[in-house]
């Protein structure tokens, strides 16, 4: 079983595929669940506090907007933990979106330079492409040990 980070990191479709193939998906929903369920924090709706963008300084400099650093405080540790990556490009917000294009770019870059096994695919736009898309992901995930 391998820890696989998916990109976009909010994609539940990709997370589900990873899980079905017996691996552990690393996605934002898991990180947000931890935050929301943490007792004694009172910063709804996501329980993110001004401390989180400071934690994001590990991944982005202080002159990077706070919203990016706040997002990276959740995505960055997942990238650190990841043993493989499944990256899907050119999808619209329906595939999954952090809400911020700059965060997406930084996350993709950090995944790319990490040097872990990864597959990068374009989001399918036809039935035939979709079949090929699923097949390629399946082959990649099966190959992970």
């Amino acid at each position: 079983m391998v820890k696989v980070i998916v990109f976009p990191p909010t994609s539940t479709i990709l997370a589900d595929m990873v899980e079905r193939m017996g691996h552990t998906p690393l996605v934002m929903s898991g990180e947000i669940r931890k935050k929301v369920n943490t007792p004694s924090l009172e910063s709804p709706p996501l329980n993110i506090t001004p401390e989180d963008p400071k934690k994001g300084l590990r991944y982005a400099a202080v002159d990077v907007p706070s919203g990016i650093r706040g997002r990276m405080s959740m995505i960055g540790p997942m990238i650190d933990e990841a043993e493989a990556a499944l990256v899907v490009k050119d999808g619209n917000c329906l595939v999954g979106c952090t809400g911020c294009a700059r965060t997406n770019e930084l996350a993709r870059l950090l995944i790319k330079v990490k040097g872990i096994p990864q597959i990068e695919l374009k989001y399918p736009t036809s039935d035939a492409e979709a079949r090929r898309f699923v097949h390629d992901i399946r082959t990649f995930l099966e190959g992970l040990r």
Partner: protein
Amino acid sequence: MIRIAQLSCGAEYSGVQRELEKAAEAVGARLIFPEVALDDVLNVESRFGIEVPSGDLNLAMARATRLVENPDLADAVFVCTCFRCAEGAIVRGEVRRFIHSHSRLPVLTYSFTERTTSDTLLTRMEALVTTAKMKGLLAREKQTGLTAGIDSGSTTTKAVIMRDNEIIGTGWVPTTEVLKSADAALEAALSEAKVKREELEGIGTTGYGRFLVGKHVNARLMQEEITVNSKGAVFLADAQRGAATVIDIGGMDNKAISVQDGIPGGFTMGGICAGASGRFLELTARRLGVNITELGKLALKGFHENVTMNSYCIVFGTQSLVNSLSKGSRPEDVAMAACHSVAEQVFEQQLQEVEVKQPVIMVGGTSLIEGLPKAMENLLGLPVIVPRYAQYIGAVGAALLVSGLLEG
């Protein structure tokens, strides 16, 4: 309960959403998020005019279109994005312009960091709520009866006495102890007006110390300086009808307000550093060995082009000041360069966030430093009006507005 529609990107992830909500709650408002259909977000370009890579910004634009189509959904709009985000800044400006040109909803724009607190936002939110809630009072054009206004500012405290639409007494003192300064300014104004305190029918307060002073003098109106100064400015400049732009460069922060029929439509409040405020001009006057009241006249004889000065940061600005003098620059040129530098920052950082429409009215004590409105005129390419009593603008606005609460 006033409903403020929040159109934003990054507020939750910056950890400041709770602060935004606290600021709204403190002024009796509630933040709402206009609902949109997924298609509205996916097709935002066809309705708004642009689409950007960031999903949350597209959502903000989709919400803006929903608001202008259904203006009853909210009473005011708060548009905010992360500080230093170029994409966010562009969308923020366009959303503000879009709402302005398609509705009468008052708009406040802001860029936040994780250090933004509810206290920082309080005055801005208060102004937004006042604009939405008290349109009737703000539409008032005449002062009636015998009233006083006190503006408890960070640097100076001002007071005026008004009777039947005329200013009959003024008082101006440096702010030291807030209450003592307010008492001194009011006493000076009463003495000039030859009026006893107990004869006053109502007192209005504004400025940083408005609540403390308001409680002390039993004020009927305690109002933030954005709406009050707008009212005072258009009253004194005789520009109560139609559009106007009010610029107030204060001792601690600056305000740029776009006004329509005496009511603020959009405004910014801030200043990165004291280098963009009256404080830098005070420092310049001291370094040049002239009184602050002489600095403006001195500046008018100089040319800013002869001195390199950037007071983006007051420390660097002071260095420029010292360097230029040590190189033998003329005091006149240094004075004008200081005025130009302060005006340039307000022009670059704040006037880009409001609709600049004529007449442009400069108010506050700094507007009397003649070099400053001159520098602003040059930057804007428009004439700048400095009305009589410009330094008493907040006090005049408060005296005028409080008279509206005395009737009925």
